[in-house]
């Protein structure tokens, strides 16, 4: 069964039906969704006795299809309109047949279609459903050697057709058709014609891309170069990744090595600690045991009637020795924690750290700044405390002097006259006693009443 190979016939049928296409062989599931085979007459058209071959890609209802088509000039009934034709298409889904066979079958179908439905260049029927075709004898052979189409992005649509002006009736055309499959990456539809008139028309309209054989080769070359560029870019990308991974590897290995070395040291320390602890454990057992024995002895002595006071003193002395001995033994120290190194690649590490910072702490330096602020507070506190101490000291000193002065006033008063005695001053003791004259310089500190 040719489930994935369809034969479609189409044509322009004038008033009222115009362009119509019908499925003749195969599963017509796609018939309602595939694009029309109509030619865009603004860009390309057929002239009497001319043909156009086409190859087209399409992705419909999730299936990838490749169409091989051929158009022949034919007029509509009762009309002289231009841009009319009759044609055949072989539709492959997912897999295609050998080009030479496809082309052979396509030409046979088209010849059959044309001979049965066209007379004097005029299409004899008014709808594609009325067309008749003889099934080519090789049609079933198409299904025998199907191959998958590689390297074509059928989902990407460019909507940009290409027209190739080349010979379409020699063996070389099979090869061209085969190679053009590749170009379906760049173009949705590629038309081929050997008609000079059509070539001129397409070139003049300049809506579709038009190339001759050399241009076709150039298009293939361009595609090959683009692919090469993409391949080289991918290689470069891989190489860069390898380089980065090598750096990561070196870092990871070094880190591991250091960590293991540290862990080994810690492990030795731990072993030593454990040994010490074990010996201390024995000592503890011994001390407790000794003390138990001592208490037992003392108990026996008590039982035998020895003086309680004496025994109690002995007990207290032994207890003191016991406590001292126990205290001298260190508690088992915490075992140093061994850190397990984790390997990180550079790329992941960056993202991970960034994410963590963003998730938990918007300011990556927040934790670091916080203790710094504490240190500053402590500094300020110290300074303030110092200043307060100094102030207190000063106030204390001042108070001390102030409090010490009143008792000293008498001798001062007594000595004051002496101090005021000067060789030029006549000392009048009576006057002084009657009208005491305080020192101007020391007025506030020296009480007025000095009596």
């Amino acid at each position, binding site marked *: 069964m040719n489930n994935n190979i369809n034969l479609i016939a189409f044509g322009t049928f004038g*008033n009222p039906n*115009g362009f*119509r296409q*019908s499925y003749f062989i195969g599963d017509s599931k796609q018939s309602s*969704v595939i694009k029309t085979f109509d030619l865009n007459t603004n860009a390309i058209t057929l002239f009497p006795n001319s043909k156009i071959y086409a190859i087209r890609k399409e992705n419909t209802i999730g299936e990838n299809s490749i169409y091989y088509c051929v158009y022949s000039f034919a007029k509509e009934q009762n009309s002289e309109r231009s841009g009319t034709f009759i044609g055949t298409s072989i539709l492959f889904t997912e897999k295609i047949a050998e080009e030479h066979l496809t082309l052979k079958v396509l030409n046979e179908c088209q010849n059959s279609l044309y001979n049965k439905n066209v007379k004097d260049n005029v299409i004899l029927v008014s709808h594609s459903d009325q*067309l008749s075709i*003889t*099934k080519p004898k090789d049609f079933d052979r198409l299904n025998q050697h199907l191959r998958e189409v590689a390297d074509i992005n059928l989902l990407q649509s460019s909507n940009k057709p290409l027209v190739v002006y080349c010979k379409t009736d020699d063996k070389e055309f099979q090869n061209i058709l085969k190679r053009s499959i590749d170009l379906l990456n760049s173009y949705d539809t590629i038309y081929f014609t050997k008609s000079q008139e059509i070539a001129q028309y397409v070139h003049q309209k300049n*809506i579709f891309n038009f190339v001759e054989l050399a241009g076709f080769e150039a298009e293939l070359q361009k595609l090959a170069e683009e692919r090469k560029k993409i391949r080289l870019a991918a290689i470069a990308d891989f190489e860069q990744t390898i380089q980065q991974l090598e750096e990561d590897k070196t870092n990871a290995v070094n880190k591991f090595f250091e960590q293991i070395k540290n862990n080994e040291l810690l492990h030795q320390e731990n072993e030593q600690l454990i040994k010490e602890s074990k010996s201390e454990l024995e000592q503890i057992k011994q001390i407790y045991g000794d003390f138990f024995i001592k208490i037992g002895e003392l108990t026996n002595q008590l039982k035998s009637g020895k003086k309680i006071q004496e025994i109690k003193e002995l007990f207290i002395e032994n207890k003191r020795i016991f406590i001292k001995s126990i205290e001298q033994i260190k508690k088992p120290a915490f075992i140093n924690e061994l850190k397990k190194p984790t390997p990180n690649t550079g790329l992941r590490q960056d993202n991970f750290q960034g994410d963590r910072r963003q998730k938990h702490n918007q300011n990556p330096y927040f934790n670091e700044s916080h203790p710094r602020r504490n240190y500053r507070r402590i500094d300020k506190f110290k300074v303030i405390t110092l200043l307060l101490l100094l102030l207190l000291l000063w106030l204390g000193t001042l108070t001390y002097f102030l409090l010490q002065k009143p008792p000293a006033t008498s001798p001062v008063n007594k000595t004051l006259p002496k101090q005021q005695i000067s060789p030029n001053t006549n000392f009048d003791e009576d006057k002084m006693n009657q009208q005491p004259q305080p020192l101007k310089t020391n007025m506030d500190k020296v009480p007025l009443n000095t009596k």
Partner: protein
Amino acid sequence: MFYPKVMSKFKDNDDNYIPISQLGATEIKNKESNFVFFFGTADSGKSVILSSMLYYLSSQVGVLRPKQGTPNTKEAQVLLSDFFENIRQGILPNRTTRDQVTRLDFLFEPNNKSKKIPPINLTFLETSGENHNDIRRGGSYHNSIAAYLNADIPLTFIIVTSYEKAHKDDTIINEFLDELERKGKNLKLVNAILAVSKWDKSGKMTVTNEEDLNNFINERLSRTSQRIDTYGLTKTYYTIGNIQNSNGAEKITELNLSTAEILSKWLYQSIVGYPLDYEGTFWERLKFGFGK
């Protein structure tokens, strides 16, 4: 020998798979224009009418300029160039490709300087008759065309049927009018005209008596005629001139723009409300009089 398979949508969907229609292509950009929608089956003469109207508007009564902000596509520009070049060489337009709408945007600036005759935006929609034929028997339009009918835009409809095939189009024209009504277009308010194309096939270039056209429409398009009269829609005939067949190709031997003039003037007046050849207000006439 064998025959094509039946292409019923329901039979195709035995496995209950329904393909999703393309939604992306339904949005219409730049709605600020007067849209002119041609309806007619394949080979009815839509493209000929469009090309000759454009030629008349730009060669006889004004200027068709590109509309700023709405550039025509490259394909539309090629189509326009072909229209203008071919019509003077007597070459008729190609058949139109199905499943695509070629949008032609213009600013039409009339030669008439009256303030009542302002420049207008015109957007002609070039579609394929094959697509119009799809609405037969409850069928639906291709997305690209349906988008314009569904959009809230000012539409003028030019319904085209040919002199020779008019009798075959009576039903589908009615189906189209039904489709418009289903889409909420009030046919009493909508701008629509029935144009009987290829009138030269009648052996005459003009309709000397209005009754001739009415009789033709009554006879060949009975149901359409009733509907047009009920809604008060306009009727006209169309010809591009003498056409001769030489070596299997039709060629215009004498270009006749008289019917293009009638249809173009109707189009302008139906949009603006004043005839394209409006003589001007009293003061304008006085001013133009002094100007001479």
